[in-house]
């Protein structure tokens, strides 16, 4: 305990001394929102600094560049970072999804090759799962991968397109889901690859979001040649490996490298905004209608946190064990969207301002947060699909 307290103090001191100075531009909210080189470089430099100080990947094996320490150390670092609200580390797909996956099922060569650069931020990772024409239906993946062995070695030729590739223009590697067997219509014909983004035949095109910012790309594969040793597992195991990736993505499986993965903007910040905002010369937080609405959001947010605690007790979830996990995304993301929408009403006439305006409240991050909150209510299956899942799989209602 003594050691841990000392460690916490040491982390706290280091963060205070080393946090980067506030930039003169608004930082993105998460790795999905990195839209400019200035934002990217700022965050990548920060990740490198954190890694070099030994505060990232603390539980990952030292042989591959990790710290080889117990989880409690990384937990302390994460908590201190959240407390001091330092910037997030941008290589999320590597640190939280691809990294844990490679460490669990990758080959020794893959671990040696990928883990260190992922932690330092020198090698950024992106994900190629969703496709332009398939929406939420991942199993219907149409991007093709065909194995070819010729004079230049053992390769796969990739053809097709992926969409919503966060950090696509900065990434060195991609985790890719592609169809190796077109005879199998759905799950069975899929395979999973680690591919270099600089392979010939891969190109990206930025997607402009409703915020006006960039952050995603569309990624095109035109007879792209990628090394065959990038195949994870065997051909046909892509779906299982993608599902395993999703358990890391949802944080259900642990094993993440740590660090913050987004700018936190929650109900506590909204309450604080209400304290600072004025209505008829009074703090907005004294307005009964504002108070009522804030407490509604607090009760909901607390309810969702408590659902997380209750989900760990099977005896309290025996009636419908899937109810909490399968309703979580619907509850949490819709709550966030409504909360951001409400934040405008705390800003008076200044709610009309936008990012880049000198008088925008908090640099416009509430307005931008509202727009970006749709990435969560839409991404990973829109709320309306989630409500179908809850209705059908949790409540047992018939399919359409």
């Amino acid at each position, binding site marked *: 305990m003594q050691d841990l307290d000392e460690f916490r103090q040491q982390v706290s001191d280091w963060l205070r001394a080393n946090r980067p100075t506030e930039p003169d531009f608004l930082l993105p909210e998460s790795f999905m929102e990195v839209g400019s080189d200035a934002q990217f470089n700022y965050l990548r430099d920060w990740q490198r600094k954190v890694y070099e100080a030994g505060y990232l990947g603390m539980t990952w094996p030292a042989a591959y560049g990790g710290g080889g320490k117990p989880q409690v150390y990384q937990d302390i670092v994460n908590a201190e970072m959240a407390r001091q609200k330092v910037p997030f580390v941008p290589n999320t797909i590597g640190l939280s999804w691809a990294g844990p996956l490679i460490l669990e099922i990758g080959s020794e060569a893959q671990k040696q090759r990928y883990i260190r650069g992922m932690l330092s931020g020198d090698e950024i990772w992106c994900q190629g799962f969703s496709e332009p024409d398939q929406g939420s239906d991942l199993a219907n993946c149409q991007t093709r991968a065909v194995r070819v062995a010729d004079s230049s070695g053992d390769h796969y030729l990739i053809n097709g397109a992926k969409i919503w590739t966060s950090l696509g223009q900065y990434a060195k590697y991609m985790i890719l889901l592609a169809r190796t067997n077109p005879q199998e219509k759905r799950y069975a014909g899929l395979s999973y690859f680690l591919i270099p983004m600089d392979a010939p035949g891969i190109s990206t095109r930025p997607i402009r979001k409703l915020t006006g910012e960039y952050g995603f790309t569309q990624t095109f594969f035109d007879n792209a040649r990628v090394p065959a040793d990038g195949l994870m597992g065997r051909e046909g195991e892509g779906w299982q490996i993608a599902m395993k990736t999703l358990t890391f993505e949802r944080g259900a499986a642990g094993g993440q490298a740590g660090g913050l993965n987004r700018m936190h903007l929650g109900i506590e910040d909204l309450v604080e905004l209400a304290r600072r905002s004025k209505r008829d010369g009074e703090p907005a937080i004294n307005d009964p209608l504002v108070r009522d609405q804030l407490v509604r959001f607090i009760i*909901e947010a607390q*309810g969702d946190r*408590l*659902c997380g605690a209750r989900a760990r007790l099977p005896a309290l979830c025996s009636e419908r064990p899937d109810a909490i996990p399968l*309703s979580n995304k619907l509850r949490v993301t819709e709550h966030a969207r409504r909360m951001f929408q409400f934040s405008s009403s705390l800003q008076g006439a200044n709610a009309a301002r936008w990012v880049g305006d000198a008088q925008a409240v908090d640099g416009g991050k509430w307005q931008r947060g509202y727009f970006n909150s749709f990435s969560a209510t839409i991404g990973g299956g829109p709320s*309306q699909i989630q409500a179908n899942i809850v209705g059908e799989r949790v409540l047992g*209602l018939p399919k359409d």
Partner: protein
Amino acid sequence: MRPLDTRIHFSDEQAMLLESATSFCRERSPSAAVRSLLHAESGFDAGVWAQIAELGWLGIAVPEALGGSGLSLGHAAVIAEPMGRHLLASPFTSSQLCSQGLLAGASAAQQALWLPRLCQGTVASVALFEDEGSWDLTRPQASAQTQGASIRLHGHKTLVTDAAAAELLLVSVWHDGAPALVLLPCTDLPAHALQREVVIDETQRCYRLALDGITLPAEALITGEAALAALQAMREAAWLLASASAAGGLAGVLDVTVDYLNTRSAFGRKIGSYQALKHGCAELLCTLERARSHVAHAASLLIDGLDAEVALRMAKAEAGDGLVQGGDRGVQFHGGFGFTYDCDAQLYLRRGLWLQAWFGDAAHQRSRLAELLFAA
């Protein structure tokens, strides 16, 4: 904003209790039984009540020395949820409130006299509300005046649940410039002191209690800090049991509704396949999960002996409104059948409207929560 605790625990003992309470309520309180009691004068089945006493549920939050099993009120929530789910009618909640009031404020002699009997099935209740309908329990208009070794009561109370079946009422009165409580044995009630009231939830039995002319020995009075502690204990018990019962009711009405959506067809398909109805049910499920989590958390704090006011008010706001919304959507989603008395959705809607207003509706709770959470 002050940070919020997020503990939830649930012992094997609670899990067993939940299991037995769930099957008991399902077996003893099917819809036909609920409906047969709606217009019976007593409002509950004495045989079922005797079994509840035999199971030891009435003394669950009473110390062993006083005839109970020495657990906490947090454990009683486990029983209240299935009771709410199956709309099981009984004076359970009334009696629990009285027990909690006695434990927090009564003298050792009063506790020794009454609590063992309450644990055995003697019905008791509390008389805390008045005509104004205020949820502030510390300013009663009814009064008690000391006259030598006696006290004389004046005024009246309303919405006294299960009073006709009760042998003891714990009555709030104004005494000597402060709120106080009186232990009123029902054998001392004059004829016509109780008048039945018509309330929205037909599973409840409510009475107006006229106090004028009642004289009791001065020892019947609880005053000062003890009275405040008892008022607080009754209020917290009401919040917890109402929240648990409302969460159970929401689960119940969701079941009734989903069953119907899986049975009824329109335009050539089961109506549950229509997304307009499916999404409405999914929304209720989300509310149910949050409400249950709030209840489990508040119960955990009480079991740990910690301040649970914030958690209880949140649970009451979420579960109370949740059941009203569940009943409301339940009626609507049943279509024409939902508009009839025969559809069970109305039973849950009525229960929801009863529980929502009982000991503070959601807007009231949120207003108090704002004071608790936003204090500088």
